[in-house]
Every structure is written in structure tokens, then in C-alpha cells.
């Protein structure tokens, strides 16, 4: 079915507060890095895909126009795709289908955000409708806390166990980020630090929550023929999927999150994965909140429902565990929203091509990347592998 598509290069900026560069300059930094990694030039690019958080975050509408020059897109076709937090995966999918369709052989996909330039929480509140939701879903932490509490409630998870496991996730992500030169937060934290941090929305504390970052990421896609010609070790796209529930949060059961579950199921079917815990070598799960990451583990079939805290406490998802999750330090340590989902994919691709440096999971061949968006509405997944 369709043409095989590979990732032949990735590029990232150093993430964090980047007021040393204007927004277009930040975007260009990632693009130049990706081209360099792929060993190609602007002239080789046939199409450009771009996405950010909704433009209210940027204060500039239709940023594909603003960044046209920075992306090297002049004289080329551009597609702009946006699905809130899951933008990074949506643009990744767009790049894939563009090449798979045969309409282009080499396409660059660019995600970016400058969270320090706008008001992230305020922007997220404008996602909610003004009639039923905006009044009560103020800011992302509130929504994610609601979801975590529902999960704890429905699966009768002891609150202490959930707290302990969430702290393990925070500590391990912060540790992993120390190995990632691009990560925003480089800070060693202890279990006690996490458990005693300031409460944001109970039970979520400061160190359970991702930062706001400036940053950009670019990924270069190529057709099978081109990839084999240009790149010694491409990362092949094995499966991809995107699902969304209703707009109103309360209409679907978020403790078993159908969109995350179904998106994974579909991507696994395409990639021929039957037992994800065994078959996958590494996962880059979009984890802006520690508690929420555990819900993803369950939705993605890494463990049975309600059992994620036990698996976390067993060390299953640590660097030396059965399925290392977020070796890059994940979203928890770096979150330029429009780029975040694409960074997950770039990191997964680096893992399966052995380019992950200090973060490398030995012998990784098959990796999952993921992002979620909306008011807990959307989930997108891309699976990459070292073999065609």
C-alpha cells in the first residue's frame, strides 16, 4: 500500500528561553540543522509542511506566510497543519502522506513555538468554548488533573501509589534530560523535591508539569528511492494514526482515553506490532504531566488498565527497563508546543538510527512517538523502525 517513506534527517534548536533570536530566525535554525543532518540543501526540498500551536499563541496569524523565507519555502508548495498540542504529529503525518502520495520525493516538516512570547495558559483557555467549558477548564493543568483524578477513581488506584509513581516519572525524565543537549530543563531532582513541590492543581505539583519553551524542530522525509540514495541509515515510517473524541470533555471516558487507545491500535496494526511492550524498543510519549503519562502507558498497551503505577514502580520504563520511555527527557523537560510532537518523532528516529548519543537505547530498532492535543481530545502516533 503506497510508497515507503523514510526520515533522512532531523534538526532541533536548543530549547528554552530563546529571546536571542526572532521567531523566523528560530525556525531557520532548526531547518538548517535538519538539512545538514540529511546532507542536502534547500534546493533539494520539494515541499514544506509547517505547524504551530493555534496562532493566538504566536500573535501572528497564518505563520506559514511569516516563516516562508525562514523555511526556505519560497517557490515551493507549503501545507500548514495544526491540531493544537498534537500539531507535531499532525505535521509529521502530513509529510508522510505527501511523499507517500508520490506528489513529492523530499519534504521537510517544521514545527515551532515561542511560548515565552505569548501567554500559554491563556491561549489554551481560548480553545474552550465560551458557553460551557471556558469557565471551568481554565488552563491545561486543571483539565489534566481532572483526567488523572478520574483515572485514579475509576481504577481504584491508591492515591499514594499514583503519587509515588508520578514522582518516579518526574525524576527519571529530569535525569534523562541531562543527557539531551537540546532539552530546556537541565536540573537534577529527587523524589522528595517532586513530592514537596508547590501544588499547581492537586494532586499535580510543579515538578509534575512541563515547562513552557521556545524551540523548533524539523524533519526531512524522503521516498524509498531517494532515501536509499541519500541516506546510509534512514528511519522508516512503519505506522501512523490520529484519532479524536467529541469536543466536550465529559462525553468520552478519558480514564480509558479512546482516542489514544484507538490511535495506538491502528498504528500497531500497520507496523505489525502485537505485543507493544515486547515489540517496541523505545517510546517517546508526549508527557506534559506525569500522571497523564501513566494513562498513556495503559492506552498504548504497555500494561493493563489501572496497573501503570505498578509497572512504573517496577522500573519497566526506565532507561534500563524493558521499554525505556522518553530517553530525551520528554515533554516534561521541553515543551515548545507546536514542535513538541515532532520532537518526539525526531527523537524516535534518532533512536532507531543509532544517532541518539548519550540518550541511545542500545540496539533500538522500533520506536513509538506520540502527541496529544485539544482539551484532552486528540492523539496522534507515528512508529518508526530501522528496517524497511
Amino acid at each position, binding site marked *: 500500500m503506497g510508497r515507503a517513506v523514510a526520515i533522512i534527517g532531523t534538526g532541533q534548536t536548543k530549547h528554552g528561553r530563546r*529571546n*536571542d533570536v526572532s521567531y523566523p530566525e528560530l525556525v531557520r535554525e532548526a531547518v538548517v540543522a535538519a538539512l545538514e543532518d540529511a546532507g542536502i540543501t534547500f534546493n533539494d526540498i520539494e515541499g514544506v509542511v509547517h505547524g504551530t500551536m493555534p496562532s493566538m499563541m504566536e*500573535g501572528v496569524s497564518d505563520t506559514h506566510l511569516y516563516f516562508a523565507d525562514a523555511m526556505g519555502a519560497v517557490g515551493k508548495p507549503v501545507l500548514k497543519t495544526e491540531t493544537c498540542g498534537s500539531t507535531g504529529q499532525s505535521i509529521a503525518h502530513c509529510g508522510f502522506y505527501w511523499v507517500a502520495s508520490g506528489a513529492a520525493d523530499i519534504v521537510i516538516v517544521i514545527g515551532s513555538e515561542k511560548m515565552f*512570547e505569548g*501567554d500559554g*495558559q*491563556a491561549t489554551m*483557555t*481560548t480553545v*474552550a468554548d*465560551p*458557553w*460551557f*467549558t*471556558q*469557565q*471551568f*477548564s*481554565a*488552563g491545561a*493543568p*486543571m*483539565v489534566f*488533573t*481532572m*483526567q488523572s*483524578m*478520574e483515572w*485514579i*477513581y475509576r481504577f481504584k488506584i491508591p492515591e499514594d501509589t499514583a503519587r509515588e509513581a508520578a514522582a518516579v516519572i518526574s525524576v527519571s525524565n529530569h535525569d534523562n534530560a541531562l543527557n539531551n543537549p537540546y532539552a530546556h530543563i537541565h536540573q537534577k531532582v529527587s523524589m522528595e523535591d517532586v513530592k514537596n513541590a508547590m*501544588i*499547581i*492543581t*492537586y494532586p499535580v505539583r510543579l515538578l509534575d508539569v512541563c515547562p513552557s519553551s521556545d524551540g523548533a524542530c524539523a524533519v526531512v522525509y524522503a521516498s524509498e528511492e531517494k532515501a536509499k540514495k541519500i541516506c546510509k541509515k534512514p528511519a522508516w515510517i512503519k505506522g501512523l494514526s490520529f484519532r479524536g473524541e*467529541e*469536543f*466536550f*470533555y*465529559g*462525553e468520552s471516558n478519558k480514564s480509558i482515553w479512546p482516542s489514544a487507545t484507538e490511535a495506538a491500535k491502528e498504528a500497531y496494526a500497520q507496523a505489525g506490532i502485537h505485543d507493544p511492550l515486547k515489540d517496541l524498543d523505545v517510546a517517546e510519549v508526549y508527557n506534559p504531566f506525569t500522571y497523564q503519562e501513566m494513562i498513556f502507558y495503559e492506552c498504548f498497551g504497555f500494561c493493563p488498565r489501572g496497573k501503570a503505577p505498578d509497572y512504573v514502580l517496577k522500573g519497566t520504563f526506565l532507561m534500563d527497563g524493558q521499554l525505556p520511555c522518553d530517553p530525551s527527557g520528554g515533554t516534561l523537560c521541553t515543551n515548545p508546543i507546536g514542535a513538541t510532537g515532532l520532537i518526539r518523532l525526531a527523537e524516535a528516529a534518532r533512536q532507531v538510527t543509532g544517532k541518539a548519543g548519550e540518550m541511545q537505547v542500545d540496539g533500538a530498532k522500533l520506536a513509538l512517538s506520540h502527541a496529544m492535543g485539544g482539551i484532552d481530545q486528540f492523539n496522534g502516533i507515528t512508529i518508526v523502525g530501522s528496517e524497511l
Partner: protein
Amino acid sequence: MEQQKPKEKPREVKTVASVPYELAIGPTWSKFFDYLEEEKIMGKKCKKCNRIMVPPRAFCPRCFEETDEWVEVSQEGIIETWSYATLKFYGQIPDPPFISGQFRLDGADTGFFHRIAGFDLSNFDEVNKIVKLGGRVKAVWRKEKMGDIMDLDYFIPIELL
């Protein structure tokens, strides 16, 4: 003039952008708010899957059929989840601390977003003793109706009634 350097540290331009919108509420939600003025919480039922949805829908997003039947649901329900916030967020009406909750009102098939209030929210530990997952709450109405969601002032744990 090669390699000219900025004279100061990186600079930023600060501004506030404001854009006005006026959004149509539409007949279905207008009617829902009319019902709120009568202190009734009304849902709409899908004739295909029979789910009763609150807030009401003009169509069922799953079956993709228009809904036609209005059904009153209970003003009491179960707390499916809740969250306690101490920060003031953009667009938020009540001042912090405040509690958002999702309730399964008796007779409804969807979770309903609103707030929990009606008692002292200042101390989290005290709040945590009162608000329980699975606990029951009841609607309390605003005296002067304005035709919006806050006509339903808040939900209160029934033990406090």
C-alpha cells in the same frame, strides 16, 4: 560595517492584541439557557443510540443524526472527577481558589462540567475531606438569571445541605 553587534541585550516588543468576536449561540443552546432560567437542566436524546447528552446537542456526534427530544435530567449527580486550583487563569469567572468538577447527573449519559462551591474553599486539606470522587452533589441556582451557564451557580456536596 561588518559584524555589527546589537548595543544592548536581546530586546522584546511588548504589546497586547485584542480581537472582538460575537458568536451565535444557536437555537439548541439558547433553549438550554432558557431552561436554566426556569431552573431546569435539560439534555437532548439521540434517537439512534438513546444517549442523553448534557450540554444538549443539536445532533449526536457519534450517530450523526439530529436530536429532537428534550429530556430533563436530575439536578443531582455523582462527582466523576474534580480539580482544585489556586491560580487565577485567563477567562475564569470565579476567583481562586476554586474547584472544577465533572458530574454525571442522574439520567444523563455524559459528564457535565461545572464548579463545586458553597463552603469554605480556602484550606485544601479541609476541602479534600469534603469533596470525594463518587460523592453526590446538587445544583444551587443563581437568584438573578442572566441566561448563561452561571445561572447554575455551583454544585454542592449533598452532605452540606
